[in-house]
């Protein structure tokens, strides 16, 4: 009788793990193994219904880089920026819904009852990093997803989700800042998991008492597997990296949904910043407002909702709305810029993207894109670009994604509608 044990490396086993694995499996990389190069992170902040074109421009490079009024909030960080105009998403088309569900995947969406798109680039990154980070990705939103149908017969599910785990299903959006925090630090699922694992351990211990001899060895094998898993969960809950548990717990946002959008957006940005700082996750998306948004901005002194104003997007109200979104983005940029990491900052090792599905009211002939951060020195910053006249093959949004994915170590032959990297980035 030979006992055959397959030689399976731990890495191979982990590589086979499904994306659904919510167990915070690997604890943070211990200090002893501190990496020589910090990890790279990617976040995307989305604003629905387009920007206000007259105020959205940038020209020049380096010290000579000038920003339009809508981008004013980014002035302090312009050395870290790439303002990219003129890109487009070929499979988007105008109108609503059909240009948002694919903003991060670039595929044509299916009309009607059947939901079909493709996995988004942030989720491909999440998959790539799932072994190395506690939480594969954060998918956050400040506005409720809707369903129903747009008059173009595209499901409004597309309008509410930019992150897609596969062709049929969006990643459920976390709307609660407190729960997003718990996901990150093992609170939400962690507490539940802790309790479940405790229970399993208890059962295994009971069983162990009932068996003897060789049987005990087998039960021990089970017991130690559960115990080790529990230890990891506990460790994860207790202390991320060098921060004390108390310090992090103190940052936990209040339960429930914030009533004021300003607080709401800041809370979500704080979580992304914390996640990146602690390297809990390297991928995040935040839907500040959905496509066909119903957000209201009483604090800006305007009464109607987001989408209504977007139809007159050159007006002062919509400029204010756009300005507000850019401020949130600038807030996150400044937070990361203030976080020291190695010789630089977390921002230096990240790429924060700001994007909307429209340019001019309901037209997606081109898209507003801003990148902040140097992605570990692989991305030069302090630049403005305009690809509008470069020719359609040379101004694809998905080409930009290929270029970014390359820099994050995920080299794909093609993505969405693009086979070529974006030149000049």
């Amino acid at each position, binding site marked *: *009788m030979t*006992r*055959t*044990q*397959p030689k*399976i490396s*731990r890495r191979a*086993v*982990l590589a*086979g*793990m*499904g994306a*659904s*694995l*919510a*167990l915070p499996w690997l604890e943070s990389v211990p200090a002893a193994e501190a990496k020589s190069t910090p990890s790279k992170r990617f976040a995307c902040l989305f604003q629905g219904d387009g920007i206000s074109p007259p105020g959205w421009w940038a020209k020049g490079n380096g010290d000579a880089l000038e920003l339009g009024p809508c981008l004013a909030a980014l002035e302090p960080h312009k050395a870290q920026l790439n303002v990219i105009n003129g890109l487009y998403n070929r499979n988007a088309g105008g109108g609503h819904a059909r240009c948002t569900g694919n903003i991060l995947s670039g595929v044509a969406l299916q009309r*009607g*009852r059947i*939901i079909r798109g493709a996995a988004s680039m942030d989720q491909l990154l999440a998959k790539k990093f799932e072994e190395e980070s506690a939480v594969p990705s954060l998918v956050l939103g400040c506005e*409720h*997803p*809707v*369903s*129903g*149908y*747009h*008059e173009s*017969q595209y499901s*409004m599910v597309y309008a509410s989700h930019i992150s897609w785990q596969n062709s*049929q*299903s*969006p990643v*459920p959006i976390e709307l*609660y800042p*407190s729960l997003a925090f718990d996901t990150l630090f093992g609170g939400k699922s962690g507490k*539940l*998991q802790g309790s*479940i694992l405790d*229970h*399993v351990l208890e059962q295994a211990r009971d*069983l162990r008492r009932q*068996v*003897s001899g*060789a*049987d005990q060895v*087998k*039960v021990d*094998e*089970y017991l130690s*597997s*559960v115990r*080790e*898993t529990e230890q990891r969960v506990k460790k994860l809950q207790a202390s991320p990296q060098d921060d004390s548990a108390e310090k992090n717990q103190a940052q936990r946002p209040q*339960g429930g949904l914030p009533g004021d959008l300003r607080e709401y957006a800041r809370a979500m940005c704080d979580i992304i910043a914390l996640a990146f700082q602690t390297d809990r996750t390297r991928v995040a998306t935040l839907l500040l407002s959905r496509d*066909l948004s*119903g957000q209201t901005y009483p604090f800006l002194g305007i*009464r*109607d*909702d987001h*989408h209504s104003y977007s139809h007159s997007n050159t007006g002062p109200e919509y400029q204010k709305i756009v300005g507000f979104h850019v401020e949130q983005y600038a807030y996150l940029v400044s937070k990361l810029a203030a976080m020291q990491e190695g010789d630089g900052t977390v921002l230096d090792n990240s790429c924060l993207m700001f994007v909307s599905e429209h340019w001019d009211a309901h037209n997606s002939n081109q898209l507003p894109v801003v990148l902040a951060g140097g992605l570990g020195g692989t991305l030069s910053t302090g630049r403005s670009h305009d690809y509008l006249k470069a020719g359609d093959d040379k101004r694809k949004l998905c080409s930009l994604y290929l270029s970014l994915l390359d820099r994050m170590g995920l080299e794909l032959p093609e993505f969405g509608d693009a086979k070529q990297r974006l030149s000049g980035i």
Partner: protein
Amino acid sequence: MPAFLCQRRTELASVWAILSLLSVSAVAADPFQDHVAPLVKKFCGDCHNAQQTEAELNLLKYTSSAAVADDFRQWEHVITFVERGEMPPKSARQQPSAEQRAELLSAIRTIFQSEAQKVAGDPGVVLPRRLSNAEYDYSIRALTGVDIRPTQSFPVDPAAGEGFNNTGEALAMSPSLFAKLYAAAQQVADHALLTTRGVEFAPYAVATYADRAKYCEQAILQFYEDHKIDYPLYLAAAWEYRHRESSLESATPAQFAKTRRLSPKYFAALYQLLSGDPSADKYFLGWLRKRWSELPPPSGSPPKLDGKAQEAIARLTRDIATVSKQICPRETPAIVSNAGNGPILHLDRRRKTAAQRDTFDPAAVLQAEKLLLALQTTGIPTPADEKADKNKQPSPEKPDPAAQPNPTAADITASGAAFCKLFPNRFYFVDDTRGLSAGFHLIEGFFRDDQPLCRSVLSEAENRELNRLWDELDYVTDITERMLRGFVFFERSERNFLKHADFNPFKEEDPKLVLPETLAEFERVYLSRSNVKAEGEELQQHPIHTFFEQIRHGLAQRQARLRQAEPTYLKDVEAFARRAYRRPLTTEELADLRAFFHRVAAQEEQGVEAAVRASLVRILVSPYFGCHITPAPAGDTVRPLSELDLATRLSFFLWSSGPDEELLQLAEAGKLQNEAMLRTQVRRMLQAPQTTDFAREFFGQWLGYRDFPQQEAIDRAIFRDFDDPLKAAVYEEPTRLAAHLIQNDLPITRLLDADFTFVNGRLAKHYGLPFTGQPDDWRLVTGLHEQGRGGILGMAVFLAKNSQPQRTSPVKRGFWVVHKLLGEHIPAPPADVVALPAKETDTGGKTIRELLALHVEDEKCSRCHVRFDAVGLAMEGFDAIGKRRLKDLAGRPVDNVVRLPNGDEARGVPAFASYLASARRDDFLHTLNRKLLGYALGRSLQLSDEPLLAEMHAVQNRQNDRLLPLIETIVLSPQFRNQRCRDFSVAQFRQQNQKATP
């Protein structure tokens, strides 16, 4: 005679009967000291000693009969080699005489026999273990009713024992695997759907709203599809009923419809309408009945719908549709793309449309005479009529027929109403792109529009079912609240109607929006801003009020359903736990589970749904689900397994998953440890579909095809026919055949030589067999022998698995037959083997047979290869993907001749398989028996199992090689039904055994 065809050593088990006749005491007191030890020392000890362990075997270390018995596997090999004359080797210093060989063999067998008898029926050590991947997947399927297969990404299970992965030796647990199991549990929990009836499982994850909605919507769409009315089908059936044979004379229309799987209700009404007196109605019914009576009668008996009648029915169908279109109310568009339309008015329009689909449009009265005239003269309305029809306006209100001055109008109306009831403009409405979605811009909502179907087609039970499906959709999607919130958003943002300051208190995101007082106030403001002054009855009828009433009703209904359903969720979770643990939960466990559920449900951020999912995860990661652990009872011998443990053991043996409700109940009632009941259950279980799982797991592992999906390495550049559908089909074929043999109680030896097999469209094409079914159907086909196939030797999966990526491999194929099927022990090849060429075209001009002959030149290789190389040639008529061929890839004619021991030649698979099934039947069955018993017990076999193996073979001889009696024998055996006690001692057991069998 080639060495490979030497009859296998006389099987220990088959001489058992003879040996048993000898009184043990008649043999020398100690056969080991008297016979074995001296001979072994003399003839084997030169090479197999402590210093020089040739073949890793030291034969001098054994000092007693008991020691030989303990290591009986090794000594079985000794028997094999000595009996064949392979040992001592030709080069040995001295050879034993024939008598000495016989003396040694007889003594070893005597030791085996006497030692085995003493401990016969020992349950052995069955280690605790986790579920294998396959068992996990099948168990999940049994628990949820859907095939989720969460272990697809798990590492492949290793095998141990008798070569199966269902043993404790094989199945280890590790932290990484536990993490995977945890993830798998979460994946399963994501399939849980909380319905009005309790916890159900969807075939895909339903953790998001869109997936939940899809699941419920799909169920309704499927129901509609299953109950749609196809006029030609019904008219043809009515025609056949009218001309039915005398034997069917007394059948009512409803009874007749049932035999045709048509709606009895609709068919009966239709037949009544058609067969009425044509002269009794001058209008639509009169016309219809006349046309009906004019249909050509059948030309012969029994009445067969011929081309003429079929054509006439097609014409009638067309005309009915035309008339229906003209006299039923016109449909308003169900989807309004213009955002300016108010949802309330839109809903009102749809409600009216839905209510009138099967009514007569009073406006049609005016054109009725003209239409009827056209029908009666030309039979088909002229294009001018079509045009006139387009100009027809739907009348907003139904005029009272009684108020019509013309009495004809009343008659026309009555005739039209009867017609429209059965021929509505639609039976139900499903939008092509939006499905059941209500179709008001951006607002999520569903609109039910199926009244003709419910009124005229569905039975009461079917109506209840459809209502339930709609209830489920509303409940699962919480659609009323969604619709209300969407409505507020839309009316404010898109229609600007709510932008008036009066509406400021009503916000899309406000949790209080759904409160009755908020809604009442909302309605009041809405009515007032819409300048509606109506009161009393008029208000009750007003669309705005109707809308708010509908919202209130929906919210209240959802609340009521929730209150009703919530307690069932915990109950379902408890029932799930019982099935998962394969036993009732203890009182403490139950209390603990409930406490956990309530604790999670009570958390604001979690809730009931999260509680259900978390509880399911908790159950699925429990060792009581994920492991087989049967704590040993106190004592020093053996005890019967508990009823529940026996149920588990039985169901994992025959189904590779946990006990079903019947087994669990029997066990709980203490009725399973009973011979008659065990037999009954085995029979029942083998007739269940899960027998396919048994076939896949047992035969798949024994015959070595279970890992084909993962291990297949065919070079598709060379074998271009090989694609994924073919791969799936060849993998499934042997499982289908084996399950068929079991369930039809056919000899299991048919596996070797059956003239039939199962194929789907793809596999039939591959085998060059005619196929008439749908491509995905599996059909039993016969006449394989004519095609050069038959039995497993001709199955593509084995031919492919035992080939090289670019060519066939007679070596691998032969080895597979001799080792896997006939159970011959063949040691692993030495490290320095010479590889055969990778391609059939690279043989340097030699034939395959010549190449194989090279093996035999080298003594080191030939010792084994002569036993199987030539066997593989029998299968040379099939290429590396099992396609039949006359020439190999180098263009040589195939050489598939094998010389048999009697001097005959077997050409190809059927002849060789027939030899295997007859001359080598015993070898095949002995192998099967060892494998099956090892699989059933989940451990390696031991000497104490030999008497049972002998009994199994005796059963086979009596029972025509059928598997069922064999499985019964195993299930009834003491090793299957008992377990060792905590302080098991062989001595005690031996003593007890001897008392029991004096």
